[in-house]
C-alpha cells in the first residue's frame, strides 16, 4: 500500500516499495547483497545526475575524472545510507531519502575539486563591497548609503571570525564545504557563524536607521 505524506510529516503507512527496500537491506546473504547492489546502482545514477547538472561549469575536469567522482560519491553515500537505515522513518519514499545522500556527496566532491589548488581568499583586509562594478543608473543614493553602512558593519560589528567567514562565503563566493574543510570545521557550524554574523549586521543596519523590509521587498 502506498504511504501518504501527512502534514505532520510522517506516512500513515510505509509504502510497499520502501518497506521492501528496508527488509532487503536488513536481510542476510544473497538477498542483502543484491539489495546493496541495487542501492549502489541507484546512488550512482543520482551522482551522475548531479555531475551532469554541474558539467557546464566544470569544463576543466576530464570526463574520466568525473566518472570516478560519481563512483566515489556513490560509495560514500552507500556507506551513509546503510549506517543510517534506522533513521529512515518513511517521511518520504526510501529512494528519495537515499538519493539525497548521493547528491550531497557528489556536490561536495565537485565543489572541492573545483577549488582544488586554489588559494582561498580568507583575509578580510582589502575587500570592498560590490567591487566588480560601478553603481548602475537604477541604484539610488539610499542604496549606495546602505552598501556603505553594510561595509562599515562588516568592519566594526563582527568578530574577526565572523568577518572572515562572511566575506569568504558571501563576497568571495567560496563554497561552504570548501571553507569548512579548510577551517577544519563542519558545514553546520560554519552556517551558524554566518547566521550570527548576518544577525549582527542586520542589527547594525537597523540601528543606523535603515528599513531593511523596504529594501527586501525588491529581493523577493
Amino acid at each position, binding site marked *: 500500500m*502506498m504511504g501518504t*505524506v501527512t*502534514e505532520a*510529516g510522517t506516512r500513515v503507512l510505509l*509504502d*510497499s*516499495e520502501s518497506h521492501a527496500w528496508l527488509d532487503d537491506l536488513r536481510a542476510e546473504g544473497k538477498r542483502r547483497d543484491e539489495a546493496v547492489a541495487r542501492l549502489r546502482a541507484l546512488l550512482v545514477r*543520482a551522482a551522475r*545526475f*548531479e555531475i551532469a*547538472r554541474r558539467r557546464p561549469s566544470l569544463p576543466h575536469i576530464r570526463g574520466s575524472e568525473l566518472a570516478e567522482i560519481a563512483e566515489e560519491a556513490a560509495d560514500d553515500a552507500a556507506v551513509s545510507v546503510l549506517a543510517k537505515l534506522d533513521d529512515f522513518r518513511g*517521511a*518520504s*519514499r526510501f529512494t*528519495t*531519502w537515499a*538519493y*539525497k545522500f548521493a*547528491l*550531497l556527496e557528489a*556536490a561536495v566532491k565537485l*565543489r572541492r575539486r573545483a577549488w582544488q589548488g586554489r588559494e582561498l581568499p580568507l583575509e578580510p583586509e582589502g575587500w570592498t*563591497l*560590490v567591487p566588480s*562594478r560601478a553603481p*548602475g543608473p*537604477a*541604484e539610488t543614493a539610499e*542604496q549606495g548609503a*546602505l*552598501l556603505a553602512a*553594510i561595509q562599515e558593519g562588516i568592519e566594526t560589528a563582527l568578530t574577526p571570525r565572523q568577518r572572515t567567514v*562572511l566575506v569568504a*562565503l*558571501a*563576497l568571495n563566493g567560496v*563554497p*561552504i*564545504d570548501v571553507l569548512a574543510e579548510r577551517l577544519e570545521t563542519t*558545514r*553546520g557550524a560554519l*552556517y*551558524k557563524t*554566518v*547566521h550570527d554574523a*548576518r544577525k549582527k*549586521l*542586520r542589527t547594525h*543596519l537597523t540601528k543606523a536607521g535603515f528599513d*531593511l523590509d523596504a*529594501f*527586501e521587498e*525588491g*529581493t523577493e
Partner: protein
Amino acid sequence: MTPELSSELVRLLGPGEAEFGCDACFAELDRYVELDLAGEDADRIVPGMRAHLRGCPACREEHDSLRALLASEPANPEGRTP
C-alpha cells in the same frame, strides 16, 4: 533595485527570518521536496526550510538537484504525484 544588488543583499544579510541550519535542512529535504512535488504547501508544513534555502547556496543547489532528479523520473506504478 537592480537584480545584482538584490542578490548581493541576500547573500550578505540572509533571509532575515527563522530558518533551519544545514543539518536540519538535510534531514527534512526529502520530505520537503516530495510534498512540494505532490502539490502540498511544503513551506507551511516544513517551516524554516524556504528561508534556509534562500540563505544557503549549497543547500539550495542540493534541493534543486533532488527536485530535478525526482521530476525527471516517470511516476512509479504506485504513483507519487496526484
